[in-house]
């Protein structure tokens, strides 16, 4: 029983981290119909920014997180405005190839700049944990889960309450109409992509305090984002959180009762199954109905 509870708690917390990684990816897919294969690379860049600032300037990683978010917002804005906007209406393999090329550039750029060594941001307290009887709740992961929830709530409010948030939502639903209403779609798209990159950077800095990372970690984060975005429904912010938690739990429980090497197989199995059975995602209706292509 303790084992089950521990696995549940840990899966839940891990799910929060997964959601944090995926939420920006889901946003970009939902609003612009772009599958950003460089998303994982953005996450890793965020981790490197926080790590480098901690290593050289002794900056607290949670402050470094802000720097990572700001840096990636700017980078994301420029990438969308100057690159992806150029082919945003093209057949999808074109944006897929473009973002894949970007991914290669970023990942190998990181290897050239920082080598392929494994890094981690050492905080001294992130591995300590609260104990409820036998069940442990590690502080670092708890902070990650709290951040994921806060980011989700914040993003939902941002989308509902701010001008630019409304602009993003309406552009996502009907681009032509949004343009007719006087919105600068290029700016809105670039802003959305920047926002997603900032969220990825935040996730990366957070992960850096909890896990080890290297440039090669990027692909894994992108794949996880696929699974979660599909589970939760595209662009559905609550869905990303729910999808992340669901995946975290399924993997954690699977790891307890099946062979430990099966966790990845479980994730992909769930992905394919959901796509076949209910492509609009498990949680409610897709946020952007028009995007449900199946």
């Amino acid at each position, binding site marked *: 029983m303790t084992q089950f509870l521990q696995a549940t708690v840990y899966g839940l917390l891990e799910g929060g981290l997964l959601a944090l990684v995926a939420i920006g990816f889901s946003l970009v897919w939902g609003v612009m119909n772009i599958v950003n294969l460089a998303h994982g690379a953005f996450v890793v860049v965020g981790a490197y920014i926080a790590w480098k600032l901690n290593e050289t300037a002794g900056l607290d990683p949670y402050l470094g997180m802000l720097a990572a978010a700001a840096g990636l917002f700017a980078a994301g804005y420029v990438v969308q405005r100057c690159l992806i906007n150029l082919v945003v209406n093209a057949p999808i393999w074109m944006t897929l190839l*473009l973002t894949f090329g970007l991914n290669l550039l970023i990942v190998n750029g990181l290897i050239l700049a920082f080598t392929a060594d494994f890094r981690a941001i050492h905080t001294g307290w992130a591995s300590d944990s609260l104990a409820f009887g036998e069940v442990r709740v590690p502080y670092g992961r708890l902070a990650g889960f709290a951040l994921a929830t806060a980011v989700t709530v914040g993003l939902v409010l941002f989308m509902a309450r701010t001008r630019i948030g409304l602009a993003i939502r309406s552009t996502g639903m009907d681009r032509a109409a949004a343009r007719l209403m006087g919105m600068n779609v290029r700016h809105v798209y670039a802003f959305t992509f920047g926002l997603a990159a900032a969220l990825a950077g935040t996730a990366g800095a957070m992960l850096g305090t909890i896990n080890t990372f290297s440039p090669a970690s990027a692909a894994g984060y992108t794949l996880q984002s696929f699974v979660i975005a599909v589970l939760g429904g595209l662009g559905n912010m609550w869905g990303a959180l729910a999808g992340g938690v669901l995946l975290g739990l399924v993997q954690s429980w699977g790891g307890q009762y099946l062979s430990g090497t099966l966790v990845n197989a479980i994730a992909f199995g769930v992905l394919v199954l959901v796509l076949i059975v209910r492509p609009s995602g498990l949680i409610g209706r897709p946020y952007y109905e028009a995007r449900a292509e199946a």
Partner: protein
Amino acid sequence: MRAWLPWAAAALGLVLLALGPTYVLYDAEQRTLGSVFMFVVLAQGWNLIGGFAGYPSFGNVVFFGLGGYTTAVLMVKTGASFFVTVPAAAAVGLGFAVLMGIPILRLRGHYFAIATLGVAEGMREGVINLPGLTGGNKGTTIPAVGEKATASYPGNTGFYFYFLILAVIAMLVVWGVARSRFGYALRAISQDEDAAAAAGINTTRAKIAAFALAGLLTSVAGAIYAYQQVTIYPDRLFSVDITVLMVVMAVLGGAGTVIGPMIGAVSLQYLSEWLRDNLTDYHTFVFGAIIVAAVLILPMGVVNFALDAWKRRRIALFQAVRAYRL
């Protein structure tokens, strides 16, 4: 120009390629050219489903891996000769394409791309988790080299010819498809599936057939590759990188054309080889930059670009940017 002239030239080229190993090519060059032929096959396989039918599969490597493992497992477990395992690998590739195609080809766009990717990654994990059969992550070794070898090994020249023959077959298949009713059905589907159905095309059957044909070609390539490698690992045989390479080759050569994927495979394979030799540390970085640039500058591929230049007397670079920018 006389109609037979190009055919004669193609035949001459083939004869030269067939004589190559005897008179000109060193072992490693045969091996390099062999891998070029292999990628011609893989790119053409992708071309059928991604180029002609317009279903951007990001998981075609699953057929490659399945073909390779079918051959390896049969040769290891039953001691079967390679030539017996080839039809088995082909059948597995084809059968799996049909099984997987029935549910997945109902999805479109990104959903299809991601579902195929998920199947390929999931299959790799499956193979890793069946160590009794596949050797798991330790890989499996075909007993073809060394003192304890029970199977013969055809050597570099042998594999050169296997891949050459398969590449010729793949070219002929795609050439035949392109001018057949089936080819027109696929092109119609890629451009408008509803209109295709309204014109009487059984879109489900056509898509599955294209996927199955792609699966068959790709799995045979995988079978030859596995035999050539002797020891195979799930990570390599189901590597996303291989899928991406076939997509890049087909697309940058000219998806939906007969010769585009061949041009893409030949030029990109030699380009990456050249980059590796000359830019030891930077070659993957540069390769990424080349992909980004190519998508922007030559999005429709070399062949379509050349045709357009020939037919309309214009040089249309940055076509996609003109057509699709925001």
